[in-house]
């Protein structure tokens, strides 16, 4: 293998295209076909949701409807069934997103700008926190919420969700902040600005896209989270769409597949839109995973 790696490759490159062409074309066709087959397998479960939501007599099986209808959507668009749960989901997601971003920016600033003795250990703990399986701590969290009298409290749940997304948010924010050159702040410091003023006036305006990505990342995670509100929020009027849609499934799931699909689609749409927005902001379709890679 070392032989292969050390051999000079540059002169050979020119002839490669023609030499490899016939086999290369066959390989390329095969690759495209295989990809399309995989894409078809991946799209089938999702296509059911889309098709069933417009089918008045939807079943669990994928089939084109006899008549396209929006009756399923009309049936579920009531305040208690749809609008209140969606509003609750928005409050939870926007609330934890805002708290996370503010706290993460504050924490990332010293970590990014100063060499502190314990900064490294803090970052290690943060990394460790990104790995902690949240499902594993939900039973103790429930017990903690009982002790603190926070059970069934929207603010309590918002702060908990903010805390769980904080490790990843601090990690991402620090990476974005590291790419803002420190020389700009030094100019502000010499003019007598404090660190916090420099952060607000100089650093934040330069990392707006990064902040947006972190906010959307937290928002999307909170919006899609089922287990946390399922355990921590008990009264139906406080539950977000993820939980109320599950209750709907339990009550009507075996009869009203079309309505379940319509509800799912309505609930999933904002997240899909935000994902497209992130790809626009960061210029990469794979931005969220890239951020995760650290």
């Amino acid at each position: 293998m070392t032989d292969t790696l050390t051999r000079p490759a540059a002169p050979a490159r020119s002839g490669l295209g023609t030499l490899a062409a016939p086999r290369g074309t066959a390989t390329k066709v095969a690759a495209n076909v295989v990809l399309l087959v995989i894409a078809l397998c991946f799209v089938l479960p999702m296509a059911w949701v889309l098709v069933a939501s417009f089918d008045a007599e939807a079943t669990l099986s994928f089939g084109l409807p006899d008549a396209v209808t929006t009756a399923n959507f009309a049936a579920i668009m009531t305040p208690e069934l749809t609008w209140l749960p969606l509003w609750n989901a928005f409050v939870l997601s926007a609330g934890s997103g805002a708290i996370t971003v503010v706290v993460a920016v504050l924490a990332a600033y010293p970590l990014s700008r100063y060499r502190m003795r314990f900064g490294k250990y803090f970052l290690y703990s943060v990394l460790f926190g990104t790995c902690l399986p949240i499902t594993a701590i939900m039973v103790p969290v429930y017990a903690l919420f009982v002790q603190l009298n926070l059970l069934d409290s929207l603010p309590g749940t918002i702060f908990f969700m903010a805390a769980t997304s904080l490790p990843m948010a601090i990690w991402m924010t620090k990476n974005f902040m590291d790419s803002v050159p420190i020389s700009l702040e030094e100019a502000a410091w010499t003019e007598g600005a404090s660190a916090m003023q420099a952060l607000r006036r100089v650093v934040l305006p330069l990392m707006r896209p990064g902040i947006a990505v972190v906010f959307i990342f937290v928002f999307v995670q909170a919006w899609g989270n089922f287990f946390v509100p399922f355990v921590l929020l008990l009264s139906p009027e406080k539950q977000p769409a993820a939980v109320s849609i599950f209750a709907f499934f339990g009550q009507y799931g075996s009869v009203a597949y079309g309505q379940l699909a319509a509800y799912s689609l309505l609930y999933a749409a904002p997240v899909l839109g935000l994902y497209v927005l992130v790809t626009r902001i960061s210029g990469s379709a794979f931005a969220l995973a890239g951020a995760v890679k650290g």
Partner: protein
Amino acid sequence: MAVTSRGVARVVPLAPAVVLLALFMLGPVVWSFYGSFTNAALTGPAALSPEWIGFDNYTALVGDPDFPKSLWLTVVFVFLSAVVGQNVMGILLAGLLRSAVRPVRSIASTVVVAAWVLPEIVAAFAAYAFFHSEGTLNTLLGGIGITGPDWLYSTPMLAVILANIWRGTAFSMMVYSAALAEVPPELTEAAQLDGANGLQRLTWVTLPVIRRSISTNLMLTTLQTLSVFTLIYVMTGGGPGTDSSTLPILAYQEAFKFAQVGYGTAIATVMIIVGGIFSVIYIRALRPEVD
């Protein structure tokens, strides 16, 4: 004096993060270790004043036939759906995407990513409808004359493993796409000139070059899959019986359905320890980047 006050001022912005993390992340972990040594319950006298019962919960865990079974199901679920399924599919897709024409590339990556971006409960419904005895899969199989089984009852683990591969492959695909883009083309071309076929090039050139991404991704997908709850809960509810009760499902049922919080916490503690071990390995692998 001046140095200390400046030092303090620098640390102050970290305070909100430290408080939130200590209260809602460290607190539950510590409580989990403590609670697993008590007989805490949701109702009854044990709910008001849990008593210290030592290792009784853990002794009960080992003696309870559900726990070793659940542990084994979790290992099977994580190994087949994350370590094998998502990683192999991810690297396969990433490789194929590189040689695909533009429209195929964008269709395939959009579809795979969409399954990952969907809220987990919607993904779970979609998978439930797909694998249901009257669902899409059996309709398709019926179209070619095969009567499919009731996947969710007769092969619940297979159904949730396939569903989790479908749900999570996008992450591995994105990580490996980024990794493959950084493999110098000269390396693979040189190997090709030396007569290495595609598989040999993959085994001896590409995989060694991206080994860091592989180890990172293995750790992350393992940790994510370890904590999958919603997908299994909606598709099978852990059943039939306990045939698809992985550790998160078992902990939830023990703590909330059967109100044995101490016992459920002992299961949670086992998960935290397993997760912690994987996290330490992962962080050690990332170390040079942190320093």
